[in-house]
């Protein structure tokens, strides 16, 4: 009998799976892995099987369930265990999701296009003005999603350093840092939502205060929990995908040239980046609330279940040449945004920001290249959001 391999593992290249994931994939599409605390959990690595289990009615997101798998010490915190939407099952999840859908639908996001394009242009103007080398993390990848979500929610962008710092610690910090950063953010949002309930402004938080809190459908604590999860989710994922996607493109010069020669490929290229870099590594952490039969395996009620986007996105059963980065690929199907009722609320906002950012960078910075060797880029994060801490690039100015 094969021993359950350890999960998650650290990447050595920012956009490639850790070496050990190959062996995990070979034991898939469903196997058991060992977590940091010595407990075992089921892991789904097949693409079709990932979609199947993520739409299974016996899969639960209840993080307070004693069988819920904890993939890193920071996820023991009360805040991580009680995240709005993410840690909820129907019917409560669906009620919250319905409140938010009108504000994140594809149609709603398309109306934001001109505003986001102007924001991207302003950031890229500053990069051009700065001249090479410039750090794409601090000059675009981090501030762009931050500014966009702050405007959308109606929270002051002046406080973005605080949001970035807190979100980073909650997602990637030690158990202690994660807990205290989460509490700081809750305290901030407590004051902010109180102001919005008393005197609602234009953004999403003000809208929810007016339409849902004043009507008694949500409490102030519910609104704080919603604002918290939207801020954290928006600050981490788009930022990392932008950075890892740019590294991947620059490390594949023939693909970069192909895209630059035909920018109509961009939407496809964005899907391929999202598939290939698998920023979120682990796309789902769940517990079975009833028995589940999948791919010949029997998962019992109370057992933990993980879904690896990194491995499922490179599944030879559904992807041609799964390990190859191809901006014109037609089979870009991925589970990076998850699948089932919890699929990413902000996916269309993320896609649009990525599209506009890559468009401006590629067309305005000629001969764009990494200013350091890819091996020198500091990597952070295993199991959740994969990050590089800085990304110096150069171009012909």
């Amino acid at each position, binding site marked *: 009998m094969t021993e359950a391999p350890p999960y998650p593992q650290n990447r050595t290249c920012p956009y490639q799976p850790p070496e050990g994931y190959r062996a995990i994939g070979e034991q898939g599409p469903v196997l058991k892995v060992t977590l940091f605390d010595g407990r075992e959990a089921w892991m789904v690595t097949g693409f079709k099987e990932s979609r199947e289990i993520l*739409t299974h009615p016996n899969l639960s997101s209840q993080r307070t369930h004693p069988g819920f798998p904890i993939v890193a010490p920071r996820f023991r915190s009360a805040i991580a265990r009680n995240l709005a939407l993410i840690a909820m099952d129907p019917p409560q999840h669906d009620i919250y999701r319905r409140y938010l859908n*009108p504000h*994140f*639908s594809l149609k*709603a996001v398309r109306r934001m296009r001109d505003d986001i394009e102007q924001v991207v242009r302003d950031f890229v103007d500053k990069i051009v003005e700065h001249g090479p080398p410039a750090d794409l993390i601090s000059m675009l990848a981090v501030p762009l999603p931050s500014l966009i979500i702050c405007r959308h929610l109606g929270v002051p962008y002046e406080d973005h350093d605080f949001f970035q710092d807190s979100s980073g610690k909650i997602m990637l910090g030690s158990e202690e840092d994660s807990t205290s950063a989460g509490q700081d953010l809750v305290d901030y949002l407590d004051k902010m939502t109180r102001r919005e309930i008393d005197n609602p402004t234009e953004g999403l938080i003000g809208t929810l205060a007016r339409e849902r809190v004043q009507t008694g459908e949500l409490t102030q604590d519910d609104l704080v929990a919603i604002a918290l999860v939207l801020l954290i989710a928006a600050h981490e994922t788009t930022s990392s995908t932008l950075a890892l996607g740019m590294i991947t493109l620059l490390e594949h010069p023939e693909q970069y040239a192909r895209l630059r020669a035909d920018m109509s490929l961009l939407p496809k290229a964005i899907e391929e980046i999202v598939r290939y870099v698998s920023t979120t590594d682990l796309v789902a952490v769940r517990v079975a609330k009833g028995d589940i039969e999948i791919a010949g395996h029997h998962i019992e009620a109370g057992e933990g279940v993980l879904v690896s986007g990194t491995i499922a996105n490179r599944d030879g059963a559904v992807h041609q040449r799964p390990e190859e980065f191809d901006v014109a690929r037609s089979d870009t199907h991925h589970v990076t*945004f998850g*699948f*089932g*009722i919890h*699929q990413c609320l902000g996916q269309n906002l993320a896609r649009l920001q990525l599209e506009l950012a890559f468009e401006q960078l590629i067309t305005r910075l000629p001969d764009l290249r990494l200013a350091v060797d890819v091996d020198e880029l500091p990597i952070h994060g295993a199991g959740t959001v994969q990050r590089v801490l800085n990304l110096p690039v150069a171009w012909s100015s």
Partner: protein
Amino acid sequence: MRVTADRERCISAGRCMATAPDVFDQDDDGIVLVTHPEPGAAEQDLVTEAVDQCPARALEVSL
């Protein structure tokens, strides 16, 4: 081909509308609308793809 959508299941991901824009739309609440329930032959591959992409399994086609 006849296309139906379960608006109760829809989570507003918008994959249908992005994939087959002549067949699917969203209302002001972000919920799916089937604008052409009987798409022509030219649309059928896109509709099949849209059904496959729907994360909420809210779309169905019958022949």
